[in-house]
């Protein structure tokens, strides 16, 4: 049995439909919404603001704090227990590490920038959707950053290299490799790379190339969403 066709009819290097919107949460300093297929993420940025407890303060530069959260009804129907768990804690941490290289928080010593990522619906690729939303929200919050961050999961299903695995592919009955990556589209750097499964060196090269191409598309979508936010219809 080989994997010849994707369940939803996509090409192997094709992503699910993407939608992005900026400025969805009015009270936040910056916010964004990012949807890829059935996975949606909201990100809200608050700050730079006063940081408590004080022992977390850094007198050299501001710190970034991320919180990834799946809403109770967001999964497969099995209620996701509210509050943090091991998985969400790890994803919060890798999200923070994926976003931090673009940010310049030198101007804000002893303060914090809070990023809250909430997922009302998830179907694979949620950390990548979260990172994409968060990077737009950070830009919307007017922070100094060198680049946006784009993220996509790539991988291998059976013997096919694929972009943007959905949940049916993640649970495919055979060899599956899931490899979420975050790429800075302009500076061409990788800020997140995790892997579940196995892959050869050659395949890794190929699949990262595919991720790079996909991230270019995502970047264009993020860019137009950010620009749209500030366009005023002439009255």
């Amino acid at each position, binding site marked *: 049995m080989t994997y010849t066709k994707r369940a939803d009819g996509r090409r192997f290097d094709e992503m699910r439909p993407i939608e992005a919107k900026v400025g969805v949460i009015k009270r936040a*300093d*910056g916010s964004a919404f990012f949807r890829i297929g059935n996975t949606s993420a909201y990100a809200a940025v608050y*700050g*730079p*603001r*006063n940081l408590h407890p004080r022992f977390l303060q850094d*007198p050299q530069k*501001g710190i970034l704090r991320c919180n990834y959260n799946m809403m109770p009804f967001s999964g497969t129907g099995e209620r996701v227990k509210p509050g943090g768990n091991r998985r969400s804690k790890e994803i919060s941490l890798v999200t923070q590490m994926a976003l931090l290289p*673009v940010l*310049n928080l030198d*101007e*804000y*010593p*002893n*303060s914090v920038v809070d990023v809250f990522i909430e997922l009302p619906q998830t179907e694979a690729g949620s950390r990548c959707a979260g990172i994409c939303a968060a990077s737009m929200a950070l*830009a*919307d*919050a*007017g*922070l*100094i*950053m*060198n*680049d*946006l961050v784009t993220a996509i999961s790539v991988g291998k299903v059976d013997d096919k290299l694929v972009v943007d695995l959905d949940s049916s592919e993640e649970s495919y009955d055979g060899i599956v490799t899931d490899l979420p990556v975050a790429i*800075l*589209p*302009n*500076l061409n750097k990788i800020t997140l790379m995790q892997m579940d499964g196995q892959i050869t060196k050659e395949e890794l090269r190929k699949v990262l190339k595919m991720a790079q191409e996909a991230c270019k598309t995502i970047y264009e979508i*993020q*860019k137009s969403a*950010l*620009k749209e936010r*500030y*366009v*005023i219809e*002439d*009255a």
Partner: protein
Amino acid sequence: MTKFLIENKSIVVPGEVIAEGNSEISGDAYRDGDNLRSARLGLLNIENKTLLPLSGRYVPYRGDVIISKVIDVNLNGWRLDTNSAYSAMLPLKEGVSEFVTRGADLTQFYALGDYILCKITNVTSQKLVDVTTRGPGLKKLTGGRIISVNTHKVPRIIGKQGTMVGMIKEATGCRIIVGQNGLIWIDGQPEQELLAVQTIKKIERESHVSGLTESIKSFLEKETKNTVVDR
């Protein structure tokens, strides 16, 4: 040679290439090889080579006149919330001019929750902020209401030599004070206060559209049914 790759007065996003060649720009941009890239979301103005911020929290600067709120009363002064990541210190000496005996109750001058119009005298590298109320017009703000706007829109709300805010004052009959930190104090008749709030929110929304003064003028004329003088 400088070649701008972006249209004048368009919005740039972080990482986007603004120009090629050895061009300079004031604002948050950085050089990456031959390219000049934007380091923030902003509005690019090619004529005067600036990248204007469109969003973001207030950052205290020396010399700014701000509206701040008393959040703590100490032995030697007051701690004020500046609508930014950092609080400011108003020392007793800078707060009141008369003699104050040791251990006197400082809430008789400024109590918790009071709003004060003050000026930033100093900001350290660690963002310790000192303010003073000594200076023309600096005082405690009593009555009226406080609204909050995007701090980067404050120059547009004030207008050139205060024309915009002057126009609103005249049309609504309200007393208005605009703080550099995005807090605005409005005092007048309740309906007129609401109109002033509406107008300010309109300016905030449409601040980067050309012909702003005209559109605000016609808006005020329509609302007040009076002619508004634009000085």
